[in-house]
């Protein structure tokens, strides 16, 4: 496989995962906006901007953090590199240039989504249409995943796609957890808000019901952290992502019959975090733990890049 192809596969899946995460985050914001009219608390849009990492850019363009501005910016703004529309465009573009590597079914889903997204023009956008749009995005991202799982060969193409998915997802889980945690720890928040915030967090990762099934109806920071960091059955937990990243890198090494820098990075990552306990995290501070984790994900991203995307020069080096 061409190095460039691997890179396109990887980024296509990072962008589509990002689109899905954004859609879920905005959906939660919308839900709060329509159910919490009586409350003074209005920080949800702020926290959504922070979670998606675009707050500074947003404030350069808009002075007020309100629903309409945030929705427009996160969903449709073509100047926002990570807006949902741009994520769909980037995914499609990354796949378009390597159409030889993906199945017709996969192409069909992303290409249709790309054509159809034109119907959701910001000019005729109304807030009431938002839930439809978000549901549509989540359906399309699920369809894409489905098409990948059911039609792509489970070869190196599949591994690079999954690396994109899991790296992006780990990154998103960290961001959401960190931002929510930050809000929850601020002194202005009363208990009732707290509970509500934890619930929205679970909703944003599509795990509201699943959490209850495992941990019961009470939301508790400890349990939530366990669920999002350590629970191996939760497809959005950090450990689940780390294990999958590790598996796919291992697959690549077997497939190519050569070890890589990515291999040593991911093994280290897994070893580092598999022995940590919730108590230790709470002792050192959740924020610090998450920042550290984020750095490790970043450096893993770099080592994947130098192992496989830099072109034949580096990939031919052997790591043992």
């Amino acid at each position, binding site marked *: 496989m*061409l190095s460039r192809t691997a890179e396109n596969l990887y980024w296509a899946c990072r962008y589509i995962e990002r689109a899905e995460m954004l859609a879920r985050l905005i959906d939660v914001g919308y839900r709060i906006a329509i159910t919490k009219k009586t409350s003074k608390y209005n920080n949800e849009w702020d926290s959504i901007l922070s979670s998606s990492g675009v707050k500074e850019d947003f404030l350069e363009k808009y002075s007020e953090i309100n629903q309409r501005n945030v929705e427009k910016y996160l969903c449709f703004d073509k100047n926002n590199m990570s807006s949902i529309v741009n994520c769909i465009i980037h995914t499609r573009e990354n796949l378009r240039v390597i159409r030889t590597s993906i199945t017709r079914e996969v192409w069909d889903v992303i290409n249709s989504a790309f054509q159809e997204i034109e119907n959701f023009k910001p000019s005729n956008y109304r807030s009431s249409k938002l839930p439809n749009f978000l549901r549509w995005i989540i359906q399309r991202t699920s369809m894409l995943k489905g098409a990948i799982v059911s039609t792509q060969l489970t070869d190196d193409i599949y591994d690079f796609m999954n690396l994109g998915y899991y790296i992006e997802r780990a990154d998103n889980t960290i961001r959401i957890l960190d931002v929510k945690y930050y809000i929850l720890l601020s002194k202005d928040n009363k208990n009732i808000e707290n509970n509500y915030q934890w619930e929205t967090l679970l909703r944003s990762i599509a795990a509201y019901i699943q959490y209850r099934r495992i941990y019961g109806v009470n939301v508790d920071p400890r349990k939530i952290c366990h669920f999002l960091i350590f629970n191996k059955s939760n497809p959005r937990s950090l450990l689940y992502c780390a294990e999958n990243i590790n598996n796919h890198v291992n697959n690549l090494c077997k497939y190519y019959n050569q070890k890589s820098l990515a291999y040593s990075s991911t093994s280290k990552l897994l070893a580092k975090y598999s022995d940590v306990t919730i108590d230790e995290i709470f002792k050192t501070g959740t924020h610090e733990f998450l920042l550290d984790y984020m750095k490790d994900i970043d450096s893993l991203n770099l080592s994947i890049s130098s192992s*496989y995307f830099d072109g034949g020069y580096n*990939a*031919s080096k052997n790591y043992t």
Partner: protein
Amino acid sequence: MPAYNEMLNNNDSVRRPYGKVAKWIDSMHGNIFEEKHNEAKDLLKRIGITFSIYKQNDLNERLIPFDMVPRIFTSKEWDILEKGVIQRTKAINLFINDIYNSGEILKDKIIPPELIYKNKAYEPSMVGFTPPKKIFSHITGSDIVRTSNNSFMILEDNCRTPSGVSYMMQNREIMMRMFPSLFLENSISPIDDYPIFLRNMLSSVAPKKCNNNEPVIVILTPGSYNSAYYEHSFLADLMGIELVEGRDLFVEKDIVYMRTVRGRQKVDVLYRRIDDQYLDPLFFDRNSIIGVPGIMSAYRNGNITICNAPGSGIADDKAIYTYVPDMIKFYLGEKPILKNVKTWKCGNSQDLKFVKENIKDLVIKEVHGSGGHGMLIGQYSTKNQINLFLKKILKNPENFIAQPTLSLSTCPTYIKNSLEQRHVDFRPFCLQGDSIKICKGGLTRVALKENSLIVNSSQGGGVKDTWILQPKDNYAK
């Protein structure tokens, strides 16, 4: 004289090969045709056939219009076309090899040497070089027009990087998905083996030095913003080979490698879809960033085969075109099966005089022009346009040729809720490696504007599925 109608006789009765298609058209009353037309559009959109055109740095993607009414050839008609195109392609390859080597046809004074040596398409770096199997133009797409029942003419030979084969295949795909019953009723020659032919042909011209069991073949594209990118990607997909850009390849010690996740991999055959001038910045345009530095040296050292060979364009130049019938006689000792269109060279003073006097009835083309650009159709031009064009011709007469305004045949075409007659041409695809083969199909292009003779997609042309009927079906009722 009215143009030859592909579907109807002079008395408006339906020609026999079109019998079932006529019934099929009749069966779609009311809005059905419109609905199907839109369905085809959607299908095309989803499958992803778009060709890009540049507009103020903005990349637009739009659909190439597809018309549902097929264009049909009987097996008898096809026999003539097939033999004619194969004969022509063989002669062209012998000609190119001759031009870059001993130059027999020049010694025999059949073609004036200045027409070759002063030609922009002549590639000095190819002199004395013989590619594997002596083939230069591996893939040739000749444009053919029909002017009467039994008169087919070659309008142009494309020996560089003829495109359009993906449309041929997708047109068929759409028709088969939408109207499977038509394929049950008619015996239509399949075309889906084209990628296999192509791959086998490319393998057959691997360098002698190639020591990979199965030669490593790649397609070189200028990139995803090229108008034919879809086709490059489509062909790579169907041949199961890599689609590369210049930056994916590098040359070390005259060996061409591609950069892969596993490390470097040697490449044996390059099916390039970029023009000669961009191929190698060390040899040609030094500003090219889409080429591969050093690839020409690797090529001349016999470490890689480039298809089509650099310098092949010398054979599809519009001035050389006039000599193709002579080439056929000279190299093959045969009578040309397909006719050329009568051509006046403005560089010749007698011809120029004729052109000036008869410009109203002529089509004037630039020798190096393509895509329907830089031409004048006298019949449809104003006095002012003609005078302006005449000035251009007189400035540099060698740069122009003139041909009679041909009455291209017409085919019923769906335009705004009704079927109208529109002019068509035809491009078959001929492959030559260790053997020569032509795909039993091709691309029919249709001018969607009324009376227009310009079928190019960049100028609003559309495409049709093209059927080659099998012998038993020629006279089906």
